[in-house]
C-alpha cells in the first residue's frame, strides 16, 4: 500500500550525479533534462549546508527540454547543447547526465557523447535517470562511469604507481564533512608514505580521475563506492579494500595496518607516524579525563544518518566515551532489498540496541520521541524531536541548516578530537 514519506532527505539519482561531479575540479556537467533539475539540487543542497564552488546551480549547462523534445526526441537538442557548451565553458572533462524524461523517451544520449568524442572532445555520458535511485545511486553510477569511460577521452599513461591509493565511498555534499573527511584520510595515508586520489576537495580534480587506473589500491568507505572500485578492478586490475571510515586511535591504527598489509608493505613503515598520532590523540583526550566522570560522558544516544557515518561515530562514542547506543536510524537505502542485502547489519547489531531504516521525518521523529536517548546525533531535521525531548542534537548528517562547514571532520585522529569537543560541548549545554 502506498504511504506518505514526510520530508525525505535524499534527492534523486540525477541530483547525486550532479553534486558529485560539480565537486571534481575541471568537470563540466551537461544536464539533459527539463529546466530546473540541476537548480533544484543546488537550492536544496545550499539550504542543507553544502558550500558549492565551480560550475553549479544556475551555471550548469543544460538542454532545458520542452514538450516538443519529448514527443520528437531530444537528441539533436543535446547535440546542440554539447557543441555550445564546449565553445563557451572551459573544462577538462564534460559529463552528459541523463534525466527521467530523456530515459523514458529513449534519447540516444550515448550517441551524442560519442559524436563529440569522435571530434576529439573530452565528453562522456552517465545514463542514470533520476528515478533509478536517490543521491547515493547517483554518486555510485557517475563515479563508476568516470572510471570506465575516462580512457576513451584522455590519453592515460599506464604506469603503475605502487603507493597511489584511490578513495571511494565518501559522498560529496551528502556527507556534510566530506572535504574534511577526505583531507584527514589523505593526511593519514600520506603519513604512512602513500599518495591519495581523493577526486574531490582541494587536491582533487580530473587529473586524479585520469590516474585512478594506475593506483595500487582502491579504498571503499561505503557501499556506494563499490561499483567504481569494481569498474577499476575490471578495467585496470586495481584491487580494492572495503573498510569502515576510521575515527579514533584504535580504528586509525587498524585501518593503517590493513592498508599496509593489502599493499604488502611492512607495518613497521607506519610505526613512527602512528606513534606521533598516538601522542597527539592522548594529549587531547587526557584533558577530558577529569570531566569524563564528573559530567558522565557515557550518555544514551540515538544516531540518524547514512550507514558508513553512523557506524563510524557509534563505534567511536561507544569505545571512547562508553556511550550507550540505543537507537540507530539508517537513511541511505533506496529499495527494500537493500536492507536484506545489508552486510553491515551484523556489525550494527553489535553496536546498537535498535536498528531502524527510515527516510520519513515523521517516523524518525516518533522513534526518537519514544527512545530513551539523552542526546541525538542527526541532521537539522531531528532538531524538532530534540527540542520536544529537551535534549541536544549534534549535527552529523545531511541536511544541516545553520552551520558553515568547510574543513571540519569527525574522521581520523583530528576528527576524533573535533568530535570530542562538540560532543562534550553538547553535554555541557544540556546540563546547563
Amino acid at each position, binding site marked *: 500500500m502506498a504511504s506518505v514519506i514526510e520530508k525525505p532527505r535524499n534527492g534523486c539519482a540525477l541530483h547525486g550525479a550532479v553534486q558529485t561531479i560539480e565537486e571534481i575540479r575541471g568537470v563540466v556537467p551537461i544536464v539533459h533534462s527539463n529546466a530546473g533539475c540541476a537548480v533544484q539540487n543546488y537550492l536544496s543542497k545550499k539550504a542543507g549546508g553544502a558550500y558549492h564552488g565551480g560550475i553549479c546551480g544556475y551555471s550548469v549547462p543544460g538542454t532545458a527540454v520542452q*514538450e*516538443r523534445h519529448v*514527443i*520528437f526526441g531530444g*537528441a539533436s537538442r543535446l547535440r546542440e547543447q554539447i557543441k555550445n557548451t564546449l565553445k563557451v565553458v572551459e573544462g577538462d572533462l564534460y559529463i552528459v547526465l541523463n534525466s527521467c524524461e530523456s530515459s523514458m*523517451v*529513449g534519447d540516444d544520449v550515448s550517441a551524442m557523447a560519442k559524436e563529440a568524442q569522435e571530434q576529439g572532445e573530452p565528453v562522456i555520458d552517465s545514463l542514470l535517470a533520476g528515478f533509478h535511485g536517490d543521491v547515493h545511486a547517483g554518486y555510485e553510477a557517475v563515479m563508476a562511469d568516470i572510471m570506465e569511460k575516462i580512457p576513451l577521452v584522455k590519453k592515460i599513461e599506464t604506469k603503475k604507481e605502487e603507493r597511489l591509493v584511490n578513495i571511494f565511498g565518501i559522498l560529496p555534499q551528502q556527507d556534510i564533512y566530506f572535504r574534511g573527511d577526505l583531507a584527514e584520510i589523505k593526511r593519514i595515508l600520506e603519513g604512512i608514505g602513500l599518495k591519495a586520489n581523493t577526486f574531490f576537495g582541494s587536491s582533487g580534480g580530473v587529473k586524479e580521475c585520469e590516474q585512478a587506473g594506475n593506483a595500487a589500491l582502491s579504498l571503499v568507505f561505503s557501499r556506494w563506492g563499490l561499483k567504481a572500485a569494481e569498474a577499476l578492478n575490471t578495467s585496470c586490475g586495481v584491487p580494492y579494500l572495503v573498510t569502515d571510515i576510521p575515527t579514533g586511535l584504535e580504528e586509525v591504527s587498524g585501518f593503517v595496518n590493513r592498508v599496509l598489509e593489502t599493499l604488502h608493505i611492512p607495518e613497521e613503515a607506519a610505526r613512527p607516524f602512528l606513534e606521533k598520532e598516538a601522542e597527539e590523540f592522548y594529549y587531547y583526550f587526557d584533558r577530558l579525563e577529569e570531566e569524563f566522570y564528573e559530567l558522565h560522558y557515557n550518555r544514551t544516544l540515538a544516531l540518524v544518518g547514512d550507514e558508513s557515518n553512523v557506524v563510524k561515530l557509534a563505534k567511536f562514542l561507544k569505545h571512547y566515551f562508553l556511550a550507550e547506543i540505543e537507537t540507530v536510524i539508517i537513511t541511505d537505502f533506496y529499495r527494500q532489498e537493500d536492507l536484506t542485502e545489508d552486510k553491515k547489519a551484523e556489525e550494527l547489531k553489535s553496536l546498537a540496541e535498535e536498528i531502524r531504516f527510515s527516510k520519513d521525518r515523521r517516523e524518525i521523529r516518533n522513534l526518537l520521541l519514544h527512545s530513551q536517548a539523552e542526546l541525538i546525533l542527526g541532521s537539522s531535521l531531528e532538531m524538532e524531536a530534540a527540542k520536544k525531548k529537551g535534549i541536544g542534537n549534534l549535527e552529523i548528517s545531511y541536511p544541516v541548516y545553520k552551520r558553515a562547514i568547510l574543513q571540519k571532520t569527525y574522521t581520523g585522529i583530528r576528527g576524533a578530537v573535533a568530535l570530542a569537543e562538540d560532543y562534550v560541548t553538547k553535554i555541557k549545554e544540556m546540563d546547563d
Partner: protein
Amino acid sequence: MAKVGKHIAIYGKGGIGKSTTTSNISAALAEAGYRVIQIGCDPKSDSTNTLRGNTYLPTVLDSLREGNKIHLEDISVEGFKGVLCIESGGPVPGVGCAGRGINAAVSLLQELNLFEEFKPDYVLYDVLGDVVCGGFAVPIRDGITDRAYVVSSSDFMAIYAANNLFKAINKYAPSNGAKLGGIIGNGLSAGYSKAIIDDFASKTGTKAVGYVPRSLVVSQSELYGKTVIEANPDSEHADIYRKLAKYIAESEDLVVPNPLGVADLRDWAREWGDKIYNLETGVIGAGEAI
C-alpha cells in the same frame, strides 16, 4: 470543455483494419447527413487517407514542432461528404515519445475549440494498436470519449490486443473514462471466425456489434484511395458498413468489460486450438450437432 457530439474511440491491433473500418463508418455517417470529424491518433498519420483522396495534410504535431501559432484550417481538411479529417501525427519511428504526442495533440485540438467551432454530430478517434502506454489511453481517459469499439479478427494476437484494451477500459471507466460499445469483427474468412469472436465477447461480458467479412471490394477501394462507401456504394460491403455506422450512431448499450487474465486467455485460446483442429480433421465431440 462542453462536449459537442458523440465521441467514439476505435482501437485494435496494428494492421487489423481500424483505419479502413473507421473511415467507412465516417463516410457512412456523412452520407447519412451527419457532421463528422475523424481524428487519426497514430504517428503513421494515414487514418484519413481514403476519406481525402490521399492529399497532403500536415499533422497536428508537425505544426506543433514548427512552433508557430496553429490554426484549425492548417491541420484539417474536409474529405468525402464534408468529413473533417485530422491526423495527430508523431515522431519518426524509434525516436521520441508517440504516447506523449497523442496526449499533446488531443490537448491542442481542445485548446483550438475544434468541437465548438465545427459542431460535429460524431467524432471518431482512430487509435494506434495496443494500449502500449498511458499516452495511447488518452482518448478513453478523462472523458474525452465516452465509448470505445475494438476492431478484431479471430486471430489470437488481435484478440490479445482487444483484451488489453478491455483492461484499460476496466481501469479508467470508474473515473469518467470511456465504456465499451463492442467488438467489430473484421477480415473474417474462416467459418469458425465469428464463433471465436462471439465466444470471446461472451467470456468478457461484451458483444460483437458487426462482422465485416474479408472481401476484394475493400481491397480494391483502398487501392483506389477511397472508402467502400465512395468507391463501391452499391456493394454488399457498403451496406455492411452503413449498418455498422447506424448501430454505432444509435446504440447506447455500453458496458465495462471483464478482461481475461493472462492464463485464462491462454487456456481459452488453447481450447479453441483443439476445437479448430478437430473441426478440420473431422472429429465430432459428444453433443455437437452437425
